[in-house]
C-alpha cells in the first residue's frame, strides 16, 4: 500500500491507498510511532482508495486501536468500500471502531 500522514489540530490523518497486506507492517509501525510521539487524540484512516485488506491488515488496524486506547485516543475508519467494507462487516469491525462513510 501507499500511505501518507498529516497531523493537524490534534488529529493524525492517515491516507491508505492500494492493497493493505502483511507486507505493510513497517508502515503501520511508523504510524504507531507517530502516534506515540504526538499529543493527538484522534487517528483517522482515509480508506476511500484502499482496494484490498487481508487478515494481517485487520490485525494491524487492531494493534493501532490498542495503541490508541492506551493514550485514550479514538480511531476512525473513513470511507471503506467494496471488499474492504465487506471484510470489516464480517469481522464485526463496526463494534470495534467508529466507521464513517
Amino acid at each position, binding site marked *: 500500500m501507499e500511505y501518507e500522514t498529516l497531523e493537524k489540530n490534534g488529529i493524525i490523518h492517515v491516507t491508505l491507498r492500494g*492493497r493493505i497486506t*502483511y507486507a505493510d507492517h513497517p508502515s503501520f*509501525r511508523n504510524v504507531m510511532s507517530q502516534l506515540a510521539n504526538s499529543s493527538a487524540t484522534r487517528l483517522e484512516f482515509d480508506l476511500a482508495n484502499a482496494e484490498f485488506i*487481508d487478515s*494481517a491488515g485487520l*490485525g494491524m488496524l*487492531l494493534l493501532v486501536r490498542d*495503541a490508541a486506547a492506551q493514550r485514550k485516543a479514538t480511531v476512525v475508519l473513513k470511507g471503506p468500500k467494496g471488499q474492504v467494507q465487506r471484510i470489516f462487516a464480517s469481522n*464485526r469491525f463496526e463494534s470495534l471502531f467508529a466507521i464513517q462513510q
Partner: protein
Amino acid sequence: MSTATAALLAEGVPPMVAAGLAEDAGFAMVGEAPKDGLPLVLLLSEIDPDRLTRALRPPTAACLEFAFGKAGIGPGLGPTLRAGGLYLSLSTTTAYGLGPAHAFAAAVAARTDMSHAACQGLELALHEATVNAMLHGNLEMPPSPRETIEAMTEFYRSVEAHLADSRRAARRVEIAARWSRAAIEVSVRDEGRGFIHTAQPAAADPTAKSGRGLTLIRHLAAGVEFSDGGRRIAMSFAR
C-alpha cells in the same frame, strides 16, 4: 512427439536445462505458440507482478518459476492440465514478494466470467491460503499470537530470517484452479511438514490480531477441504 502432454516454452532459462526438464516431464519444447493443441506450460525466471499477469493470460495453462535450479512441477500439474485449468508454481521467496493471489484470481475470473465481487472474494481466500502455505507450511513458522506491535515486529523479523534459509525458501507454493459449470475450485499446496486442522475453528475473538486467516477462508469459500496431511487446501466457490 505424440506422447507429449504439454508444450513447454522457457524464458530466461538455460536452453539445455529447459530441454532436460521438458524431457523429464514428458513435455515437447516449443519456440513460440502452442503446438498441436497441447496445453502451454511457461517456465520463467525472475517473475515480477506485471510479468505474472502477462504469463497467466490465455493460452497459458501453467506457469512455473525456474528457481533454485528447479522447475517446481508439483503433484497438481498433471491433473490441472488434464482438467483444462490453470496452474502456478512459485518458490516461497518469490511468492512472498509477489503476492500472487491478485494476478491468479484475475486470470481465473477472466476465464470463468466471474463478477468483480466474486473475484475479490476468491482473491482474498486464495491470498490467505497462500500466506498460510508460505509462512506456516514452507517456512515452518509456528502459529504464535501476534497481539502486540513488538510481537508482530519480531514475527516478521523471524520470517525474513527463515527466508534466508534456502532450504525452506526454495520450497514451492503450488496454486491450481479448475472449474465446471457449477463451481470453481482453487487449491494451494505447500511442501512443509503439514498439520492437523480442527474440524471447526475455535470461537473467534473479534479483537484477535492474528490467526484469522482460516476463519476468513471458511467465510469466503462455499467449501474447504484439507488433504496431504494438511499441506493442501482446496476451496470451492459457487459460480
